[in-house]
């Protein structure tokens, strides 16, 4: 009878049958790589075309509007029918922080020059502020943003809460469960929450969320970030942005892709 081969790890050479099996294992592992990687890459759901121009500085001049969230309103953006159509740019801070300005140093309505890095997606623009310089101070106490329209009747919306900074382009994907903790951190840092509403036609609409009087909604909404919710609120169109003043008692957890209207709003 032929002596069965025996392998000892510290010997220089493995018996042929052991070496063959080892090679087979390595071969199968290596050959499975293209299939494994191919499937893992190909079957991801895809990514948005949001952009964060990190490292590419942009200088913008406009009016500073601090409420309900800090915006820079460009007055020289576009001319349509002889009328100015300004673009409002949400100002955010570095990292997971919102942008905060001292109202004494930068009163509402002041003309400012902001240097920073643009973040944009689907017509919504934010700017990570690097520095801000006041060009003309405005002393008017009640500055009303240009083209601000408040809808009187509350409406019901359903979607997912995330943060606009990541969602617009700093992170991709900047939504869903994997991004949930990051969104919470951004909201905790003072960035206003963003509600992404899926309208069923494959189109999404976005709303910045505030309390009924424009107060920050964090931390009340911490537990709802990253999952489907339904809520009621009044919409304010603010230039190319939509603000939603939320009735906090109406927030409900739902399937974010549900299309039914849910309970009426009061």
């Amino acid at each position: 009878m032929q002596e069965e081969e025996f392998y000892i790890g510290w010997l220089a050479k493995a018996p042929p049958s052991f070496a063959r099996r080892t090679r087979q294992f390595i071969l199968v592992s290596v050959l499975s790589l293209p299939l494994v990687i191919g499937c893992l890459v190909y079957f991801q759901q895809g990514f948005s075309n949001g952009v964060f121009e990190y490292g590419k500085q942009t200088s913008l001049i406009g009016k500073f509007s601090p409420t309900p969230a800090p915006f820079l309103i460009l007055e020289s953006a576009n001319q349509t029918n002889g009328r100015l159509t300004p673009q409002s740019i949400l100002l955010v801070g570095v990292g997971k922080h919102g942008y905060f300005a001292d109202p004494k140093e930068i009163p509402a309505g002041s003309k400012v020059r902001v240097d920073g890095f643009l973040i944009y997606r689907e017509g919504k623009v934010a700017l990570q502020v690097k520095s801000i310089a006041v060009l003309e101070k405005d002393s008017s106490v009640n500055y009303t943003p240009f083209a601000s329209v408040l809808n009187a009747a509350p409406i019901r919306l359903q979607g997912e809460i995330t943060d606009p900074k990541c969602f617009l382009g700093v992170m991709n994907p900047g939504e869903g469960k994997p991004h949930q903790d990051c969104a919470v951190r951004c909201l905790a840092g003072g960035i206003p929450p963003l509600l992404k509403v899926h309208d069923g036609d494959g189109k999404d609409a976005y709303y910045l969320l505030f309390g009924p009087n424009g107060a920050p909604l964090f931390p009340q909404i911490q537990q709802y970030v990253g999952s489907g919710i339904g809520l009621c609120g009044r919409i304010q169109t603010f230039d190319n942005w939509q603000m939603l003043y939320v009735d906090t008692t109406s927030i409900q957890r739902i399937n974010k892709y549900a299309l039914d209207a849910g309970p009426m709003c009061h």
Partner: protein
Amino acid sequence: MALSYDPVHWTPHKRLYDRILIAFIGVYLLCFIGLQSIFHPDCTLETTVIRATGTLGFFMLHLILIIGPLCRLDRRFLPLLYNRRHFGVAMFLVALSHGVFNLFQFHAMGNVDPMVSLFTSNTQYGSLARFPFQALGFFALLILFLMAATSHDFWMKNLGPRVWKSLHMGVYFAYALLVMHVMLGVIQLEKSPVLIGMVGLGMFVVIGLHVAAAIKQSKIDAASERNIAIEAGQAVPEGFVYACEWAEIANNKAKMLLIGKENIALFRYEDKISAVHNVCKHQNGPLSEGRIIDGCITCPWHGYQYLPENGQSPPPFTEKLSTYDVFVKGTSVYVHPSPYPEGTQRIPAEISMVS
């Protein structure tokens, strides 16, 4: 001859193993990042790196977990087991880079410390679907760290093989945590049935091979017990139990016996028979599947050696096994199932080829 301490005993095998391992990791990362930039050019580099390292670590863990049962099903896979700890440490480093990238991406530069953020951003510990999956990844990484940090034989000696082995069985707990980490994390966003199917297939292969190996082992155990049950009762010296016919044991090989709670390896060599405890002092390897090489019992897993008459490793090594009395009557071999203290010299039973 000077004896010097060598933290890693490098052999050509180990070097080759590590080279293949590093090439495997490099090829995976390059292919993943390359394909991702072709199919998903809008994906940020950070997300690509997080997904590449996460999937690679999880894939490597599957390969690591199947090596054990593969070796039990077919001994010829043993060279893979011999250096598996290098594989484990490499997998931990890949998983660590995934964890660090995540911690930085999702938790750094906020209003609290990243580690505080990790456990307090999502507080829904009471919900399965919304469970903080990153915490699961953290604890899995902690287990993998403990295993990687104690993978060296130095730790095995200090902790003792039983504690060391139990600690390293933690890999199964880490695997369970990681399956949950994936299912409650990225799969909540990436819902492709193919991706979910891949996680399922991985679990099926890991669990299936373990079950197959366990069935094979239980058959071996049952066979060795049955042998004793059938033959017990023959006239034997006081306290001795019939084991087998000596011809059933090939020269320089062993037979495993389970007598009560005693797991015994019965070796035949140079017309002698000796019995030692069947469990290797290194990592509990099955000595009865080993051989007598250069007069020493040689463990099939990593080659630890013991003298059959006293269970002691030859100097300068200090490992010791329990020994048992063996008695041969005619062609039959009997074993006394009470162990002697580890390293106790016993006179081997002689077998007579002309009977």
